[in-house]
């Protein structure tokens, strides 16, 4: 090898290194190799193959050549009777100077070499720490195309190609997994939507129209939204509609019900944790903040968020930054917060049960959902909707809803709102045997619970409680049957409380 040749080859090696770093795609990698090596070595085809140990076969992964190999469409070969089988067996590179004299290859493989006029070739194993994972072949239409020096140089290249192909394969596997996860996400979201019918907000009354208008207005903005309403009014449905109509619709909608998670676990649910952060943290876990990056985080029952967790949530909302439990790395997450509560958060702020700063941060755009009894005009449509849903699911042929049944349903108070209506209809469909819906009227009567009392201040509640005790004791404060004894307090303490609360005996009568 002359000095010039040597310089050219070292330069080529450098170029190959650069190409290997730059190209994570196999086809791009093989094109780069072709462009770099072809001026230096007289080969006509460059082929990268992968060896599948489990299946004992060779997979054709990339080809560059003068003409595409005729049989390139066949992408899989048994390893036996192939050049890869031989280098696997001997552990050495394989040089075939004259293909016409070769007797170790399978006839079908020889036929392909003959068809493509391949007269000689050099095969090098691609090995890594995990063993041989493939081979690279330099084949030529000229007999005895490579000198000893050429083959030494090609072996140097082979070592670099081995690293690059392993990286490319790893990237392919990662991409494949990512595609799989994305497909799975789309499928799961579709399944959630179809199972819970989150796309379907049923009704057309003015109260619902007002809410839908608010959703349309608020969704495209990135502001935090607070949804308030009694239990069963469809707060999650509205939160999902907001997400669907927002610019974040293609990212994830992440939900956390603050009331459903034990207080001690909420922090790790939201922030995530590193392995070993606490007893039970057996592995790393990504929190909801991180999962919701670029998407929407829905915190249901936010009023139940423990007070000690509230400043941490506030910090994340303000800075978009947090650390996983047990972690030191600051993580950034950009999510839109939609919170919901069936409690009066403003009153909770007054009673110091909810932080004022968090309340104002969350309550940027409040949406209040009407109770079902405030939108009775939608009840017939909702009833028909649920009857159709359940009768299809239960394979029942319910065609009509008698007027008196509808009348009963419309006039019921529905303390449990749409959730209760849905449950009643499900039960009714189960019990109906004919084509006309029959409802269990006793269930409606038995479940005719009073509407939830409005939340009152502690002072009002205390006043009411003392007045009840005074009424029960006929306004006798002291003594064994007096109000103080009933309430389990001293007479002087009760009198002091009465004075503070402005409770005085009311005298009713004629003078």
């Amino acid at each position, binding site marked *: 090898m002359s000095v010039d040749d040597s310089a050219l080859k070292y330069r080529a090696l450098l170029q190959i290194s650069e190409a290997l770093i730059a190209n994570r795609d196999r086809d791009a990698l093989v094109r780069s190799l072709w462009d770099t090596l072809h001026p230096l070595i007289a080969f006509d085809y460059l082929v990268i193959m992968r060896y599948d140990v489990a299946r004992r076969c060779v997979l054709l992964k990339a080809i560059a050549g003068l003409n595409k190999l005729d049989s390139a469409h066949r992408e899989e070969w048994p390893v036996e009777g192939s050049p890869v089988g031989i280098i696997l067996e001997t552990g050495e590179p394989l040089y075939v100077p004259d293909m016409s004299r070769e007797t170790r290859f399978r006839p079908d493989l020889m036929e392909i070499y003959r068809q493509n006029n391949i007269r000689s070739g050099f095969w090098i194993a691609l090995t890594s720490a995990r063993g041989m994972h493939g081979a690279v072949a330099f084949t030529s239409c000229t007999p005895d195309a490579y000198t000893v020096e050429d083959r030494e140089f090609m072996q140097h290249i082979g070592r670099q190609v081995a690293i690059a192909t392993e990286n490319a394969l790893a990237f392919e596997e990662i991409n494949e997994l990512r595609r799989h996860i994305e497909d799975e996400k789309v499928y799961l979201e*579709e399944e959630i939507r*179809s199972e819970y*019918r989150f*796309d*379907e907000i049923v009704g*057309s009354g003015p109260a619902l129209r007002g809410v839908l208008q608010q959703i349309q207005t608020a969704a495209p903005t990135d502001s935090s939204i607070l949804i308030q309403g009694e239990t069963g009014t469809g707060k999650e449905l509205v939160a999902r509609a907001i997400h669907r109509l927002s610019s974040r619709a293609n990212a994830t909608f992440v939900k956390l019900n603050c009331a459903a998670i034990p207080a001690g676990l909420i922090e790790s649910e939201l922030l995530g944790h590193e392995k070993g952060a606490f007893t039970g943290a057996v592995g790393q876990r990504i929190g909801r903040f991180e999962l919701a990056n670029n998407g929407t985080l829905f915190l249901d029952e936010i009023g139940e968020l423990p007070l000690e967790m509230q400043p941490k949530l506030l910090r994340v909302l303000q800075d978009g930054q947090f650390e996983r439990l047990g972690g030191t790395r600051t993580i950034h997450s950009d999510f839109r917060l939609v919170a919901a509560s069936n409690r009066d958060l403003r009153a909770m702020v007054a009673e110091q049960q909810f932080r004022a700063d968090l309340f104002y941060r969350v309550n940027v755009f409040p949406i209040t959902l009407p109770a079902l009894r405030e939108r009775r005009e939608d009840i*017939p*449509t909702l*009833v*028909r*909707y649920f*009857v*159709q*849903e359940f*009768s*299809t699911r239960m394979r029942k042929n*319910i*065609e*009509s*809803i008698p007027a008196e049944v509808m009348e009963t349903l419309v006039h019921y108070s529905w303390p449990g709102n749409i959730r209760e209506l849905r449950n009643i209809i499900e039960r009714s469909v189960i019990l109906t045997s004919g084509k006309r*819906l029959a409802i269990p009227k006793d269930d409606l009567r038995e479940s005719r619970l009073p509407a939830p009392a409005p939340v009152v201040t502690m002072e009002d509640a205390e006043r009411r409680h003392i007045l009840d005790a005074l009424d029960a004791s006929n306004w006798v404060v002291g003594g064994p049957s007096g109000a103080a004894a009933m309430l389990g307090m001293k007479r002087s303490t009760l009198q002091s409380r009465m004075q503070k609360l402005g409770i005085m005996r009311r005298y009713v009568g004629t003078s």
Partner: protein
Amino acid sequence: MMRAQVSSVGDRVTLKVCGRLAESYVPELENCWRSARTDHPAGKILVDLQHVTFIDDKGRSLLERMHRDGATFAAHGPLTRAIIENIIRSEA
């Protein structure tokens, strides 16, 4: 998801709709309806809604337009029947 399928026997054309007639599926069905009308200008089109699970406001508006254009409907289930009955009554 929604699926619409047109079939014809002689001059009887059926546009069968399955799934959710709502949101982005409504224009899809409208295109299908227009094609069916163009392909069968003399045919009477029956819109079979027996396998429809949900109809939103846009879907309902499309059904109203179809009804005005001469479609007849086959409906099943209280919700779908109520919507169709309402359309027919309001157009009468």
